[in-house]
């Protein structure tokens, strides 16, 4: 094991890898859970088209959650135990949501006709439950798992905020992957959820320093504040630019249909960077740093070697899959 990859550097690398996995998950499953929630506002035919936009991708998208939680488990076992025991109930509910949504992909078209509508609602309800519980857990995490009503009130707000953000993500995805009437509706959904997402992001950004003096200090002390200003400024500018761009959608020329989605991805990345900066170096807020929680360097090294070899392949064939199913989504069919 090279000296560079010692007990100090390895946990950092793994924290970064885990962060990337979670960010990939939130963006990727974010858009497909968002599409799932938006199906509540669509008829059966539109729902088929909406599912067709995510059908080939959702499974791989969800694998990023398994990787993220797996890295937490293998690289930071102590933190994993603490976090998952504190989040026992919301995790169980999220798993229920992901289960319902995942199997509904198949059952909604394969079950007997009279039950297909039920599975549509399992799809919608499962997507909503997953998004809400993930937001709720994010809220509890930001609050450092403190006891009391304030924590839960904040977590409920975060649940609504993340669900809105996923809907926003899903709506921009639909703008990119559909055309005609459905695209027109997706543009309207994008505008509505853009506002909701902006409100949510502002609320979390204001609340986080208020509840944590440490985070307040990190952001607002001099000279940090100067270096950090680009994050909120870029976020605000992106929101404004997207708003203006969306006023001219849908367009006859489809070449720019993915711009809103790209904008949404950028917003998620910025939000994620802000959160990551707030919590570094803690993995369990205020309780455990990434070094305190890390497992043996030998084992981390073995995983890192595997990851460095395999991740380029994963990136390659993921890109291939998006290339195969590029452009406007067509009917899902096996033949």
């Amino acid at each position: 094991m090279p000296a560079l990859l010692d007990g100090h550097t390895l946990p950092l690398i793994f924290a970064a890898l885990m962060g990337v996995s979670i960010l990939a998950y939130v963006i990727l499953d974010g858009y497909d859970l968002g599409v799932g929630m938006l199906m509540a506002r669509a008829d059966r035919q539109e729902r088929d088209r909406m599912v067709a936009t995510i059908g080939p991708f959702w499974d791989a998208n969800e694998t990023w959650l398994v990787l993220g939680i797996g890295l937490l488990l293998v690289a930071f076992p102590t933190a994993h135990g603490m976090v998952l025991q504190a989040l026992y109930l919301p995790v169980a509910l999220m798993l229920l949501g992901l289960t319902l949504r995942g199997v509904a992909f198949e059952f909604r078209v394969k079950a007997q006709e009279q039950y297909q509508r039920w599975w549509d609602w399992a799809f919608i309800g499962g997507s909503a439950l997953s998004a809400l519980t993930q937001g709720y857990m994010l809220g509890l995490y930001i609050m450092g798992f403190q006891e009391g009503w304030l924590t839960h009130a904040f977590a409920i707000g975060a649940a609504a905020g993340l669900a809105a953000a996923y809907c926003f993500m899903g709506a921009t995805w639909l703008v990119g992957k559909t055309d005609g009437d459905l695209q027109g509706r997706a543009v309207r959904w994008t505008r509505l959820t853009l506002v909701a997402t902006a409100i949510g992001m502002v609320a979390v950004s204001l609340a986080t320093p208020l509840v944590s003096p440490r985070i307040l200090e990190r952001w607002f002390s001099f000279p940090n504040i100067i270096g950090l200003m680009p994050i909120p400024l870029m976020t605000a500018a992106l929101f404004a630019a997207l708003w203006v761009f969306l006023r001219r959608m849908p367009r006859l020329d489809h070449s720019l249909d993915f711009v809103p989605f790209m904008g949404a991805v950028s917003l998620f990345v910025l939000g994620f960077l802000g959160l990551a900066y707030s919590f570094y170096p803690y993995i369990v807020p205020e309780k455990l740093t990434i070094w305190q929680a890390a497992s043996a360097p030998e084992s981390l090294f073995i995983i890192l070697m595997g990851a460095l070899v395999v991740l380029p392949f994963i990136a390659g064939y993921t890109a291939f899959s998006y290339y195969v199913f590029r452009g406007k989504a067509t009917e899902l069919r096996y033949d």
Partner: protein
Amino acid sequence: MDPILLARIQFGANISFHILFPTITIALGWVLLLFKVMFNRTGDDKWMNAYRFWVKVFALSFALGVVSGITMSFQFGTNWPGFMEKVGNIAGPLLAYEVLTAFFLEATFLGIMLFGFRKVPNWVHTLATFLVAFGTTMSAFWILVLNSWMHTPAGHEMRDGVAFAVDWASIIFNPSLPYRLTHMLLASGLTCAFLIAGLSAWRWLRHDRGPDVMIALRTGIAIGAVLIPVQIIAGDMHGLNTLKHQPAKVAAMEANWETRGHVPLVLFAIPNERERRNDFEIAIPNGASLVLKHDPAGIVPGLNEFVSADGTRLHPPVAPVFYAFRIMVGIGMLMLLLSWTCGWRLWRKGDITTPLAWLLVGMTFSGWVATLAGWYVTEIGRQPWLVTGVLTTAEAASKVPAGMIASTLAMYLAVYLALITAYISVLFHLAGKGLKGVAAPAGVGVSKGGAPVHPRGATARNG
């Protein structure tokens, strides 16, 4: 109620539910590849139509496997935090390799395999089918490495009560891995074979006897008939390996209380753990000694050897292991009888009979029962250990309050019951739709030569 017991029931329920679906998809992936390759070679549409029907079953089974697998990845932490704290240095890399080398591969190429037939060249579609089958098998390999290591740990050393990896080759190829992996892959093959034969027999009974149904029926029976004797031999070897490394488990399987020679093979009994003897025993004299030691006088260790001086039981609970083992073996025998009878019939007369078809339908999910029974033998048989000699189950349990575990357990059980019911009924529903598809061809496929064909049972959507 005892939180450890609740946590075990919850994890056991989840892992039992989960294993049902990979057991199907591991082998079904290869069967699909067989169908696809045969279609490529012969150009005969029956192969592609069989592929189209079974790929639906694959997609449905895969989705159920994915969602229950995600649940499991969380329950390692919520139910057994002590597991990762103590052996995380071993288990962690193995799980990580499973995600990295298998999960992404199968999940990504599944999309192309299911929906990409018209979007990619035929060879890419065949390759995608191969990669999905390969991914499911890789995933089975890594998880069985970890499971086998928990049964027969090797290649590690303990420092301050925590396991550290010393030799990865010995960890991966630990003593029970070759046997367990072979046994499980064959179990998957048999489960899949009887599922294919059973559902095809159901279609046959409904007079849906087109060439694609017949070829699937033949394939299922052929795989079953070939694999079952191999499985019986592999199972026997796995048993001998277990006798060497985990004698207490074998003693519980045989309900043999005393270490002695001339041990009978117990066919049936009610193990009485309080008085440490068997009630209502029916046994073949010298049988167990013959099976386990290949010698009628062979000395076989008994359960009483695994009780410490202060009376603490260091062997697994006897009754569940004993009964589960008999269920597994009994189903294996039925599989042998039925697949060979059907194979004989097909070979001599070219078709099955109505009674045989009903028996096949009855055995559709027999592989599930045998696989679960086998897993209960090996997992309950490892108790009280979680990792043999390293970590007990009780030490690894979480501190989550019993009430919370009980309420989520009730939720999981309700969902699993509903999903299994839906799964089985939808499989038979799909199998029953075949004839309607012929009457009203809704989907149009393209055969190898470019001429449009009407795939049986294909509807406008992916249903």
